[in-house]
């Protein structure tokens, strides 16, 4: 895939660096500097003193439930999205009439704005009434209180998030699936392997690299879920917690919340990188 690179002439190398420089500068100014500011600011109080109190305030007020909730949402959402994406990608990897049309249709949720998705699903999953409850009542079931208990709000949020984001996962998995040579499957069928064994021993291992990429892209976004949680979810997540801490008089507790969020995301990303370097064969 990657062509071997011949050693460059010196001024060509310089030019290459020059071309990359603006992008790197941008990332430095707009990503690293603000992050450093956030981390730095989280250690200072309104009075200007250096202290860990902001973190103490955040954990004593909110406890660890925002972190736990964020993990729950991330893990369950990723699971749902990957299962759905595998199913859809398997369907789309087979030739059938109208496949081009269906590929386009499945991409539609990707284009619908997050806030629009949130508005629609908020309406569908209203505590009273709402379309979900209308539907349940029309088939003879009892209406569900979508803000009560553990599962209903989680289900509403997961469905909204998965509807919007499964297409991108499907896209990545599909591009991986079509690159698996069909001889592997034919051989396996000749050897008598059933569908499940083919999936676990051929499809999954060959897709490991693609799964890692999709996990990385989607996982980070899941930790950052914000607009949907604002409208649909009635428990505290790391993002909504930081937003509620934001105060024009004393912004430092919000910095602490934002720093915690950054820390959790970095830990997750590192874990994925480790998984990738250990299990993914370089293609």
């Amino acid at each position, binding site marked *: 895939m990657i062509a071997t690179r011949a050693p*460059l002439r010196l001024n060509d190398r310089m030019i290459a660096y020059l071309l990359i420089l603006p992008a790197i500068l941008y990332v430095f100014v707009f990503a690293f500097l603000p992050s450093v500011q956030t981390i730095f600011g989280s250690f200072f109080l309104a009075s200007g003193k250096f202290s860990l109190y902001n973190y103490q305030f955040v954990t004593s007020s909110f406890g660890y439930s925002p972190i736990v909730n964020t993990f729950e949402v991330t893990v369950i959402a990723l699971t749902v999205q990957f299962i759905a994406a595998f199913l859809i990608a398997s369907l789309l*990897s087979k030739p*059938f009439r109208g496949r081009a049309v269906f590929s*386009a*249709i499945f991409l539609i949720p990707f284009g619908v704005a997050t806030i629009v998705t949130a508005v629609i699903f908020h309406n569908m999953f209203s505590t009273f009434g709402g379309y979900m409850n209308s539907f349940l009542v029309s088939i003879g079931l009892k*209406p569900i209180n979508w803000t009560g208990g553990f599962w209903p709000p989680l289900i509403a949020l997961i469905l909204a998030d998965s509807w919007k984001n499964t297409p991108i996962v499907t*896209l990545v998995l599909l591009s991986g699936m079509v690159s698996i040579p069909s001889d592997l*499957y034919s051989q396996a069928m000749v050897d008598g392997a059933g569908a499940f064994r083919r999936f676990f021993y051929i499809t999954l291992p060959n897709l490991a690299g693609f799964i890692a990429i999709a996990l990385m892209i989607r996982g980070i976004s899941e930790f950052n879920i914000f607009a949907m949680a604002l409208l649909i979810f009635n428990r505290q997540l790391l993002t909504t917690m930081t937003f509620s801490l934001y105060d024009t008089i004393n912004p430092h507790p919000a910095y602490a919340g934002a720093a915690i969020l950054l820390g959790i995301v970095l830990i997750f990303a590192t874990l994925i990188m480790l998984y990738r370097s250990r299990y993914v064969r370089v293609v």
Partner: protein
Amino acid sequence: MASEYKGPVQAYVIWIGIAVFTFLVLLPIYVLIVISFGAPSQTVATYYPYLVPTKWTLKNFISSFTGIGQNFISAFYKSLETAFLVAGLAIVLGFHAAYGLSKLPGKLGNLIIGVLFFSTMIPSLTVAIPLSETFLRLGLYDSFIGLGLAQELIVLPLSVFLMMGALQSLPKQLEDQARVDGASFGQALYRIIFPLAIPSVIAAFLLSWLMSWDEFTFAVIISPVHPTLPILIYLASSARGNILTAASFSLLVTIPVIVLTLVLSKFLRGSYLTSGLVG
């Protein structure tokens, strides 16, 4: 193509699967249309809304453009300006960075790719709060330039990877041949390489444009006074407006985006997303 099965039973399974997923995909769009055009007495002003309304009206749509709706046009332009700035910056910064990266030797190149990738991981909220402070001092608060610069963070790494994937799959001899024939570096880059990479450039442009159009976190913190469309919809779905206004705006925002997404799907191949990263 990995086509494993050929059989009539399997064809039914495929069709049922397609039908189920198509239904699930289109259902929320249906709900949006119903809320926008159904008579309120059958949609929002009733305990259990009708699953298929019998009374339809245009009044929701029309009355959405009074009051908070008058902001729709200015929000539309704010979103538009920001999206074009973001997409334009993405391909200008990104194409050159992608080309440079495709030329760099392994270790250093991978390091820079890692740095870029790392920057996608930083949560928007973490960056938005200090950025809004900085922008205040620079006079960029609430301007589309400030917002565009902030949103660029989400799209730049992805654009670089997209274009890098395309650039890496180009045969090396093309460029070498051009240089041997006496072309300068600039001519080789813009006359030979760039035209061949145009599909990925367009894909990066459209993708960045769509992501900016959709962006919420930065917009709500950096540009709240003259909001972009997503913020306007958010305000309309709280009691500042009402749900009917929010639904009408949502519909107006979604239709062109669906069209653009369908156009994008012709350009976007998953292989672009992944080739820069695998290995």
